[in-house]
């Protein structure tokens, strides 16, 4: 059920608030971004994103072509070729569906296509679990895609629109995943303010890409042939293309922040850019997380503060590119960092924890970092885990201990 509240003020005419699930917030954003092609395959908990889009198309509210493909591999492959042909595309998936796309994800990034995909995060089987953690998205972090993690449904709607703007930026042209937690956001309703179509059209003009084959019929080209180890007649070899990709994704942090500012001045909503602090102004301890892990951490702050522990939360919104400098800046006054990962880089530790350490290494200010693995496969990540973990970390810091083995919370050992 969607309740509509029309906005009356002049500047925001046409805006309205709807009570939406995270999934439907994403569907509305795709509709208002006027995507040309949607190609997707059902998987829990993503399916309602595409079901809603199907309703929009059936009712004429959206004019996109929809490909009801027979697999996620085909979903991403068709998105890639549709984008190359000159269409703004959208897709969404979860867990094993995302894993099944793996080869195509690298292909999309290597072709520098401005695709937007919602990843409704879910644990990666086996064994089967339909519930949330971040393992699916984290497993695809090295494919060359940008990755943003959202914390509420308004942020999902806003981020999908921002994502197109970033991906289609002349200096970027890279695909982007908008990740949000399965069930916790995907199936939970919240009020979401939708911009007017006019506002969206102003923010997001027609599709911008470096490749639009439908315009090249008289000047044909071949896209993605075999490249050589070395440059050929001055043209890039494989490595030069990959160098350009990395240099571009490094630039995406600034571009993302610029676009966030534009979006904030349009919508009046600011999601903090690439990292977001909560009670960080006077914090000695930073609790770091993404998505639902971060919102849970915020709930623990009053309890910690009551006990005299000056903790704040640093939410990593943009995970790829990893905003190293912004993170260092945000952590410059803290003594201690506690990271909660809803994922495992198996054989090492939590992915965020490991990456955060690498961002701090070889720098003057090196706060003590302790990571915890929490909330896998939909296991409740609770306020008490945050409090307990923070206190454990403080003890390690006091004793100057940095345990090599991973620390897990909320698991029967």
């Amino acid at each position, binding site marked *: 059920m969607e309740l509509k509240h029309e906005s009356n003020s002049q500047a925001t005419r046409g805006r309205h608030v709807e009570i939406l699930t995270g999934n439907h917030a994403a569907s509305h954003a795709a509709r208002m971004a006027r995507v040309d092609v949607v190609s997707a395959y059902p998987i829990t908990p993503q399916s309602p994103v595409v079901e809603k889009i199907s309703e929009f198309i059936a009712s004429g509210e959206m004019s996109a072509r929809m490909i009801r493909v027979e697999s996620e591999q085909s979903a991403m492959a068709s998105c890639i070729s549709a984008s190359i042909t000159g269409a703004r595309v959208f897709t969404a998936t979860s867990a094993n569906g995302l894993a099944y796309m793996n080869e195509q994800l690298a292909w999309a990034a*290597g*072709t*520098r296509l401005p695709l937007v995909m919602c990843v409704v995060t879910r644990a990666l089987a086996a064994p089967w679990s339909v519930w949330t953690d971040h393992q699916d998205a984290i497993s695809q972090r090295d494919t060359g895609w940008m990755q943003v993690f959202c914390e509420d449904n308004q942020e999902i709607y806003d981020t999908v629109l921002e994502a197109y703007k970033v991906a289609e930026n*002349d200096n970027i*042209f890279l695909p982007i995943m908008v990740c949000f937690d399965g069930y916790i956001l995907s199936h939970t309703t919240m009020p979401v303010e939708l911009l007017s179509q006019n506002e969206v059209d102003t923010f997001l003009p027609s599709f911008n890409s*470096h*490749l639009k084959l439908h315009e090249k019929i008289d000047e*044909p*080209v*071949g*896209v*993605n*042939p075999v*490249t050589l180890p070395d*440059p050929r007649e*001055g*043209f*890039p070899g494989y490595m030069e*293309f990959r160098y*350009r*990709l990395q240099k*571009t994704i490094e630039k995406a942090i600034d571009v993302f922040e610029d676009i966030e500012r534009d979006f904030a001045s349009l919508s009046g909503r600011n999601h903090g850019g690439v990292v977001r602090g909560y009670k960080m102004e006077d914090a000695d301890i930073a609790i770091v997380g993404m998505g639902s892990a971060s919102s849970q951490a915020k709930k623990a702050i009053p309890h910690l503060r009551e006990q005299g522990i000056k903790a704040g939360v640093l939410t990593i919104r943009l995970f790829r590119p990893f905003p190293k400098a912004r993170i260092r800046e945000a952590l410059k006054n803290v003594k201690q960092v506690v990271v909660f990962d809803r994922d495992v880089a198996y054989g090492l530790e939590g992915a965020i924890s490991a990456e955060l350490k690498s961002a701090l290494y070889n720098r003057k200010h090196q706060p003590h970092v302790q990571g915890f693995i929490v909330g896998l496969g939909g296991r409740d990540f609770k306020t008490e885990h945050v409090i307990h973990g923070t206190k454990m970390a403080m003890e390690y810091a006091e004793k100057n201990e940095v345990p090599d083995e991973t620390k897990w919370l909320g698991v029967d050992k």
Partner: protein
Amino acid sequence: MVDYKDPKSTIAAVQVPSEGEAGKTGSWRSFKPVFNPEKCILIKSEKARCHICWMFCPEVAITKSRPPTINLDYCKGCGICSTECPHGAITMKKE
């Protein structure tokens, strides 16, 4: 803007059509087609229709002209034209 003809600005591997992409593939040849005009039906009769050699050439190395000409820069010497010519107008000679 991205220009695929400019190696500096290109960001994706986009290829443009070019003859001799693999170089002068005629150098791969061990047998060379030799055209014998006196046997070519297109020369013997102005009204004749043929161009079988042109049609069958996998390399696009024979022209659809009267008489056909063979582009030795690119002919890989497969010998299909010689085998398929019903008039024996092309013979293969060791390079």
